[in-house]
């Protein structure tokens, strides 16, 4: 087909975009009806209606424990990444120094660095320190992974803050810290909250790096779900997925309300 006809005819383009959106949404929403099924395997179409798979999540203690671990690790690594990310964002936004562009590129490498290599390498380093299967070890790995997202959001927000606000604050007698605390930080807050929500989700869902660092005694939720799906494909997994989808939707709404989801990626 002629590619230009495709792009210039509004109706054809709209139909195409709709098809792609369907492709993107289908594998995500299809888990929801199966979570309420009475079948004992993930069969389509589902039969009957039951809440027993949701009850099974609660009955199996390991899911609650893994959920708690994932939440602690996500909060810890997001908090650390926020502090370090804001500090380096200020350095990049307010200083001109040789090698600035290269350093920024280096700081962004965790975004495309093969997660499988990072995970294995992390395990090599943490194992002799006795930090395998520890919250600290996982939090360190996740901080490395989400730091670039925080840095990017903070940098984008800082560039939008008018430099004259600094001058005004200085003129009025504020020192560097007071300027940061009372002028810059309040202006950064919505962007950072959105970035932090996004980082929480990334950490909470992380699989490949964590795979090398967890084990009996300390599991994260994605790993626990994967292990469960390895030996039983009953709708319990669909039920947990449904719970996660509700949490994700809330997070998306928060980010959208604060700054708009698109800001997270531009």
């Amino acid at each position, binding site marked *: 087909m002629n590619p*230009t006809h495709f*792009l210039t005819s509004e109706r054809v*383009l*709209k139909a*195409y*975009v709709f098809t*792609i*959106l369907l*492709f*993107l*949404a*289908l*594998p*995500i*929403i299809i*888990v929801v009806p*199966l979570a309420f099924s009475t079948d004992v395997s*993930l069969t*389509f179409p589902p039969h009957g209606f039951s809440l027993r798979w949701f009850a099974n999540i609660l009955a199996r203690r390991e899911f609650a424990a893994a959920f708690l671990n994932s939440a602690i690790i996500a909060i810890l690594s997001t908090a650390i990444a926020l*502090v*370090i990310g804001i*500090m*380096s964002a200020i350095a990049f936004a307010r*200083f001109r120094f040789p090698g600035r562009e290269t350093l920024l590129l280096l*700081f962004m490498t*965790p975004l*495309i660095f*093969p997660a*499988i*290599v*990072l995970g*294995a*390498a*992390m395990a*090599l*380093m943490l194992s002799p320190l006795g930090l395998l299967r520890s919250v600290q070890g996982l939090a*360190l*790995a996740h901080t*490395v992974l989400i*730091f670039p997202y925080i840095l990017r959001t903070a940098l984008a927000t800082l560039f939008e803050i008018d430099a004259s606000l600094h001058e005004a604050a*200085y003129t009025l007698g504020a020192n560097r810290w007071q300027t940061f605390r009372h002028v810059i930080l309040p202006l950064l807050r919505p962007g950072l909250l959105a970035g932090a929500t*996004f980082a929480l989700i990334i950490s909470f869902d992380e*699989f*490949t790096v964590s*795979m090398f660092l967890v084990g009996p005694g300390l599991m994260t939720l*994605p790993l626990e779900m994967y292990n469960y*799906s390895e030996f039983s494909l009953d709708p319990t*997994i*669909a039920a947990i*997925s449904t719970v*996660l*989808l509700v949490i*994700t939707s809330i*997070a*998306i709404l928060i980010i*959208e309300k604060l700054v708009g*989801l*698109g800001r997270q*990626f*531009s």
Partner: protein
Amino acid sequence: MTAAVAGITDEIERAPRARVDFARLATLIALLAPAAALLGIGLVWPFLMMLGISFQDKFPDPTALTFANYSTALTDPYFLRITLRTFAMALVVTATTAVLSYPVAWFLARSQSRWKHLVFLAVISPLMVSIIVRTIGWTIILGNEGLINAMLAGLGLVTEPLRLMQSFWSVVVGMVHILIPFMVLSIATVLGKIDPAYAEAAAVLGASPRRNFLKIMLPLSVQGIASGSVIVFCLTVGAYVTPVMLGRGQVAVLAVTIHEQMVVLVDWPTGAAVAMVLTAGTLIVLLLYGVFLRRHSRR
């Protein structure tokens, strides 16, 4: 203006010039030190450890340094086939994702539709959904008791379920699904920056829509396709979850092999060498992109 002047005289009065610069340098170093420490401890140091192990004959307790792990990783038919399959898969996924994403990016960047923002949300929201959830979704669609087989059986087209999972193409479909949002965003960002006057000028000068697209819009948006392709390629060669869950042991790729070598076979030196091959592949793609960017900006 007066405020700026006041600020400068203020600083001059407070300290001699050289000391101001020193204070600024100290502040800069203090601001960057935590990030440098984080990436040094959490990325560079572990990576160097792994690089070291890839040259050891045994792990732990090496007795000699050797290139044998690399010759195994690069010439053994088993690893060679997996490496080729991984990079072939990354190429197929990158090309498919680019072609499928371009019209969506076009719509987001140029349409006046009131649905635009909603479409945008629908494209990027999947990025925030757990990869396990999305892969389970594909299992439900492609499985023997899944959506597609139920539909085919309902239409009387098949008598026993088609084996859609456990194949190269099921993994490709899963990867394309995960990576479309990255590609759409990259292309839409670049398309959105193109001045519409270019296309209008070409149209006024008599260019057909087809010519206008091929000669004006496509070349101007190549940069978006390139940056999106780099992200998609790098994420595909390193992917683990999708090949394992949709391939179910039948689609070996580098990430799966690295994990198997290290965790199942406990052969860390060979696993480390394979990991270095993967990292080198990623690095080469990045370097090519750097060369492309330099050429592109020079034109």
